[in-house]
């Protein structure tokens, strides 16, 4: 006869409520793990979508995600010329926040060459960008429809396609425009800014006595065009030809082009270990705290449940029950509570994880490990109850 199940059957209301409470706690622990995995998946989603072998960034920087990196767009020609490089394309990144339908609307804008690499990896509805200007492809998470327009910089852009789930390392959904448009949005000044700039230049030129009036006049009219170069990008990504040596290509870029070539693996490491390390530690610590709280709760529940059963345990001992009968009752109850609570937590997270504002990735290895930890906690927590139970004297069954 299984005493643990009989006890649970009799006190099922209390047991279910306790398990639900514990299940909610374990659900939070699972979501923490899912958030952490989601952080990694988010951080690496642009990386994976671009399928680049090398990220060429500004010298002495760890860009373009972990640090800022700026470089001339035409560097792509030098990278394309490196032996072993099959294709190289510049990319421009910027975070944009505009107001849409009365709410802040934030996304990560990627500018790419339409005939190059680094564009949307898939189109789930609509089409790719075909015109050089004023078209955009957005991630599904942005909630925009094909044909919808959005005003960015000085122009309106039309959504022509929807891509899958792709977000920046900070979790903002990604949108794509042509590189020229992205540079326009980022660097092109509006009319007021141009007028102000001209006035400022004119004031500065007036102080220069060494310039002839004709030179001053020429400079005043053309200084903006001379200084305003929008041909700046954040990185140039490169794909290697089959069989090409990654290290050799990196070394050539580093030595002859004076840029930093970051391999895909190095970039992954920078993002996963560097950028989200603190978040990982924070979440990890939080998970540990929650597991400790779970352990304390299970211990308390098992201990109080044992205290409730002192007379039962004493009676069982008096009628000759072996210790294993009593240990089994407490241990099985603790394990059952853990299993049911885990099931509740898992069910909860399964029903809700898609509704979280950030991506939750449930890895089966994480869930299995958590299950193992919960079982271990249940076993350890039951020791307090078992210790108490084994100390109960059969004589306690006597008397009123």
């Amino acid at each position: 006869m299984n005493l643990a199940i009989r006890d649970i059957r009799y006190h099922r209301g209390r047991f279910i409520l306790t398990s639900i409470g514990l299940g909610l706690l374990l659900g939070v622990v699972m979501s923490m793990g899912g958030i952490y995995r989601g952080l990694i998946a988010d951080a690496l989603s642009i990386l994976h979508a671009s399928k680049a072998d090398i990220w060429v960034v500004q010298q002495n920087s760890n860009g373009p995600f972990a640090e800022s990196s700026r470089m001339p767009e035409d560097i792509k020609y030098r990278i394309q010329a490196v032996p072993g490089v099959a294709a190289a394309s510049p990319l421009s990144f910027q975070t944009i926040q505009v107001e849409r339908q009365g709410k802040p609307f934030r996304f990560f804008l990627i500018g790419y060459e339409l005939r190059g690499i680094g564009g949307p990896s898939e189109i789930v509805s609509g089409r790719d960008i075909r015109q050089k200007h004023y078209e955009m492809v957005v991630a599904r998470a942005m909630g925009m429809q094909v044909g919808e327009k959005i005003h960015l910089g000085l122009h309106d852009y039309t959504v022509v396609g929807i891509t899958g789930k792709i977000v920046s390392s900070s979790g903002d959904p990604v949108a794509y425009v042509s590189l020229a448009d992205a540079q326009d949005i980022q660097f092109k000044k509006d009319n007021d800014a141009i007028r102000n700039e001209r006035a400022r230049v004119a004031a500065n030129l007036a102080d220069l006595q060494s310039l002839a009036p004709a030179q001053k006049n020429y400079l005043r009219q053309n200084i903006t065009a001379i200084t305003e170069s929008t041909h700046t990008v954040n990185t140039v990504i490169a794909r290697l030809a089959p069989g090409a040596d990654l290290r050799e290509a990196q070394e050539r870029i580093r030595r002859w082009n004076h840029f930093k070539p970051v391999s895909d693996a190095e970039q992954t490491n920078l993002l996963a270990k560097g950028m989200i390390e603190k978040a990982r530690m924070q979440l990890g610590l939080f998970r540990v705290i929650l597991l400790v709280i779970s352990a304390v709760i299970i211990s308390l529940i098992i201990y109080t449940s044992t205290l409730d059963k002192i007379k039962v345990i004493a009676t069982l001992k008096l009628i000759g029950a072996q210790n294993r009968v009593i240990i089994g009752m407490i241990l099985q109850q603790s394990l059952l509570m853990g299993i049911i609570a885990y099931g509740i937590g898992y069910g909860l997270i399964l029903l809700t994880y898609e509704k979280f504002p950030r991506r939750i990735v449930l890895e089966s290895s994480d869930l299995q490990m958590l299950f193992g930890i919960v079982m271990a906690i249940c076993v350890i927590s039951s020791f307090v109850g078992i210790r108490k139970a084994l100390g109960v004297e059969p004589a306690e069954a006597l008397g009123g």
Partner: protein
Amino acid sequence: MDKNRYAIAVEKLTKMYGNGETEVTAIADATLQVQPGELVALLGPSGSGKTTLLTCIGLINEPTRGKVVIDGITVADDGWKNGIDLKRLRREKLGFIFQAHNLIPFLTAQENVMIALEINHLSKNEAKNRAIDLLTSLNLGHRLNNFPSALSGGEAQRVAIARALANKPKVILADEPTAALDTDNGKNVMALLKKLAVENRSAILVVTHDHRMVEGFDRIFQVSDGRIVD
């Protein structure tokens, strides 16, 4: 003393608690014998030591001095005998009935009896059949699947008696079995114990301070200040 004739034989049993200045003698030189089929009472006021004597005979409390023999087995001789398996002896030789029935609240009447049998290694089916037989013989056939909370005091005590009898023990020890019952139910329980003592050839030792119930006993030992005085 021919110990083998008796289901219970106690000789000069002494139980002391504490030591030095705090030493208290709960039982002093108690000697008694109970034959199979006998219903015997330990009568005395609260604090007289009768429950302590019962716990020493019930292999719960280690006697300080003296001898205890249960069904021909010497279990204590100036302390527990070496190598004696008290739990096994309690399972196989003894049955206990308590003042407050002490049924396990989360088991049904039938399961409360079955647990005593399963602890004694009977198969589930055997235990079930014997529990049903026992409870039916005690007029509780209609209460098999009721939890103790749904039973009356008298019914609960009869289930407790069925549990005590389950393993056909040679000795049944009852601690104030009628204390929580009204007079009628108390008398019914005593009559039942008397009947079972005779039918099963079990020695039944009952601790009580309830003078209303003394009529049915074969013998009565009066306990006072830790001594058997009569």
